[in-house]
């Protein structure tokens, strides 16, 4: 066998193989999706984790204390607004409320009373909340929550 012929055959075979490789590469050419999938997955996991940690939120609307000023002439014609007053205080490390009856009662009892009120009576009623300095905010919100469920309007005093 001619050695020159063998060399030529080997060269042409190698060229053909190379050609096939190029074609294969050309066929697979396109955007590499792997990095995009990586990033998308990380963002997805982040959102899932943050949503679980944060928890859904909503809000309770409350009127702020009114500015105390001299009433003008026109306000004499205004109809009196029905106001239920709740004064929160701490006694024996428990939250009590003044204003529902003659003596202080626990906040749980007040919440229960509000829940048991007739809707026709409680609807539109203004609950004025006043609290001592040491009353925790969570107690005020729980009272506000009960009032909101009874369709009351809440105002801080």
């Amino acid at each position, binding site marked *: 066998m001619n050695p020159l012929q063998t060399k030529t055959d080997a060269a042409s075979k190698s060229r053909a193989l190379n050609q096939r490789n190029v074609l294969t590469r050309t066929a697979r050419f396109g955007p590499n999706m792997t990095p995009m999938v990586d990033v998308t997955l*990380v963002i997805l996991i982040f959102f899932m984790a943050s949503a679980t940690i944060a928890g859904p939120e909503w809000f309770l609307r409350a009127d702020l204390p009114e500015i105390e000023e001299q009433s003008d002439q026109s306000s004499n014609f205004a109809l009196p607004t029905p106001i239920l007053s709740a004064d929160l205080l701490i006694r024996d490390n428990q939250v009590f409320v003044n204003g529902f009856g003659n003596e202080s009662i626990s906040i749980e009892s007040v919440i229960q009373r509000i829940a048991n009120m007739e809707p026709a009576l409680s609807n539109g009623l203004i609950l004025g909340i006043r609290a001592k300095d040491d*009353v925790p905010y969570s107690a005020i919100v729980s009272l506000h929550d009960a009032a909101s*469920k009874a369709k009351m309007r809440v105002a801080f005093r």
Partner: protein
Amino acid sequence: MKNRSIISSNGAGARINVTPMIDVVMVLIVFYLLVGQLALDRKASIRIPGSTSGLEEQQTLDPIIVGITSEGIVSINGVTLDQSLFIPEIENMHARSPGTPIRLRADRDAPFGVIRPIMHAMRDANIPRVELVTEQRR
């Protein structure tokens, strides 16, 4: 053995494959941007109280978020403020956009003694009402 170097030696000139680096940098940027925005109140460690009733989000305007920690540290939209600076700041913000809702994110353990002055300050700024942010408990 297959060459796994990041310096590609294919072709005429060797070059560094920067794709993994861009991936990582992009992820870090996005992560910090989002965490920075979402955790504004977490930085101030506010644990809001829960409620079984409430109003769902309806506003299209971005609300003004007033944060109060259990220690009485006050912030507006995540920026901590001295109480003396709170009144002019909230006044300015409310005057610029009077229709913007104001949400109060106070810590559940905060005593009312630290919340009352903030409410009074907001009342003095002619803000008629606030929205108390709570966690949904159904």
